[in-house]
């Protein structure tokens, strides 16, 4: 049951082949069995079985939405009323959210059955899931390899068949990079497409929630339920949501694909470059033409991103002061001591580094040199994308410079870890939608395990339907998205 698509499961539920309770129990059993993956921070077993019973009732009554009775899980960044919402941090280890995120409400109303809350890098800061207070999730393709981050638990759970699909969030690549590392399909929507209400903030002008699933078809169904205007989010966009599933099967004849040459230079693993070539050949066969682009400002995306994201993080995380909720130190001597020690004890090293960096970049005397400069570069990068997307329908690139790395391999040097985000972060600066789809597996050698490879598809604002269409067309002629890691069949 854990290898079926949402549509197949929906048919099974409606045909009475299995009930949502049986389906939910199947996934709960798998979560227990593969506990060592550490994909979940909280498993909401009772909640899930109650929701499954309700789903079965709704299905019996007829007219239930497509996701009714489908077991999925939320990244632990989405507030869930009455359920621990930790954001991967000790700071929120005792935080029982007093309200639901809009995305949580929406999926609840769609009838989907929440299995639990997924592991993640603390406050979504990280590219390996190793910054989680609850320990790193593992990559189902190899236990010593990272699942990517920050939505590492989401990617690991979907790849291992512990949930049909999952929510993720993406500030600099946190949906796309783990999707690539775990061989699943992930979509970061256009900024403003999915409500951020109740999604714990890291860098508010970059954060965006999106679907993580086993195929573009499933991602389209999940996005359909997540997307839409929300008056509770002041940056939500009031644009109609298209029927994503209806556009999936459109022809790619005449599609123009742009390749920014800056994304194919030094640093890209040869085998990944080869896999991308092969994928591009499939697209040629589907009727696409390839056009080389030059987007010189892309190389400035990493420094600009880490200034802006750190600056926004330092302001957003100032709310964790040990007074109204979250961790508080024991026996504070005075108010300042309360702040200093509560925050020192509640935050991990990476979060501290970014708070410090952001505080510095925003402080008097340095604001223009760092923050303002980065905002100007952000404009140039955004203009570069806007210009490129007038020449082509979609931009394609690697998602990551290399395959998933070993646990512990990059933790010693934060800057080294940041360079992992080379291909994904410019897209967040521009606010555009982008996907990662699996397009290959590395060779199996004694030294290195077989690991998935992702291809990034980048589109114009609100072109999610087009991106899903382009991804789906590829998945109709290839089977990379159907591969299952050994041991999880």
């Amino acid at each position, binding site marked *: 049951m854990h290898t079926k698509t949402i549509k197949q499961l929906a048919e099974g539920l409606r045909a009475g082949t299995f009930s949502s309770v049986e389906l939910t129990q199947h996934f709960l059993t798998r979560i227990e069995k593969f506990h060592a993956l550490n994909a979940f921070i909280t498993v909401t077993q009772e909640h899930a079985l109650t929701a499954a019973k309700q789903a079965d009732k709704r299905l019996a009554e007829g007219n239930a939405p497509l996701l009714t009775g489908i077991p999925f899980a939320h990244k632990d960044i989405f507030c869930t009323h009455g359920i621990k919402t930790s954001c991967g941090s000790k700071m929120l280890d005792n*935080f*029982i959210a*007093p309200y639901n995120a809009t995305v949580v409400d929406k999926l609840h109303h769609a009838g989907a059955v929440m299995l639990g809350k997924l592991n993640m890098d603390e406050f979504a800061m990280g590219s390996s899931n190793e910054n989680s207070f609850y320990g790193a999730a593992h990559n189902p393709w190899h236990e010593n390899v990272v699942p990517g981050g920050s939505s590492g638990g989401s990617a690991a759970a979907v790849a291992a068949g512990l949930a049909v699909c999952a929510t993720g969030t993406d500030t600099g690549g946190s949906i796309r990079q783990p999707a690539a590392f775990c061989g699943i399909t992930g979509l970061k929507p256009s*900024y*403003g497409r999915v409500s951020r209400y109740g999604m714990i903030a890291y860098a508010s*002008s970059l954060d965006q929630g999106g679907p993580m699933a086993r195929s573009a078809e499933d991602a389209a169904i999940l996005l359909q339920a997540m997307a839409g205007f929300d*008056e509770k989010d*002041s*940056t939500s*966009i009031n644009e109609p949501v298209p029927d994503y599933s209806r556009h999936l099967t459109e022809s790619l004849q005449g599609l123009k694909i742009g390749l920014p040459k800056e994304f194919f230079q030094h640093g890209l693993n040869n085998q990944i470059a080869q896999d991308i070539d092969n994928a591009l050949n499939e697209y040629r066969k589907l009727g696409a033409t390839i056009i080389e682009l030059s987007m010189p400002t892309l190389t*400035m995306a*990493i*420094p*600009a991103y*880490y*200034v802006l994201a750190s600056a926004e993080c*330092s302001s957003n995380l*100032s709310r964790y*002061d040990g*007074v*109204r*909720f979250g961790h*508080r130190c024991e026996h*504070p*001597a*005075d*108010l*300042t*001591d*309360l*702040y*200093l020690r509560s*925050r*020192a004890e509640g*935050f991990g090293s990476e979060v*501290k*580094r970014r*708070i*410090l*960096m952001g*505080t*510095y*970049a925003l*402080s008097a005397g340095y604001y223009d040199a760092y923050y*303002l*400069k*980065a*905002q*100007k*570069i*952000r*404009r*140039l990068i*955004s203009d570069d994308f806007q210009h490129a997307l007038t020449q082509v329908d979609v931009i394609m690139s690697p998602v990551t410079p290399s395959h998933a790395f070993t646990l512990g391999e990059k933790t010693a040097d*934060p*800057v080294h870890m*940041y360079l992992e985000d080379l291909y994904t972060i410019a897209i967040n600066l521009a*606010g*555009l939608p982008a996907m990662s789809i699996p397009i290959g597996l590395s060779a199996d050698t004694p030294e290195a395990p077989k690991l998935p490879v992702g291809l990034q598809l980048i589109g114009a*604002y609100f072109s999610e339907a087009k991106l899903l269409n382009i991804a789906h067309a590829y998945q109709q002629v290839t089977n990379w998205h159907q591969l299952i890691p050994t041991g999880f069949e």
Partner: protein
Amino acid sequence: MLLTTNDVKKIAYLARLGIEDHDLEAFTHDLSNMLNLMTQMNSINTDEVEPMAHPLPQSQRLRADNVTETNQREHFQHLAPHVEDGVYLVPKVIE
């Protein structure tokens, strides 16, 4: 290194973030490396470029001034480390 341990101490205090003395060296080292990365931005000329704060050019929406939320003080105070008589408790600020 671009920063000294004293700089980091000052920044940490601005951020109200306690840093243990034995961690200062490491933070100073890491932050200096991060700043090094960021100075790469200076290789691009950005005179005449309008800074971009947000991906979509939009103004804040306005709404009618109606009450839309109910007061949930007690519910929220359940989450607090220390409350008494409906107020959040912190160490004495004024003697």
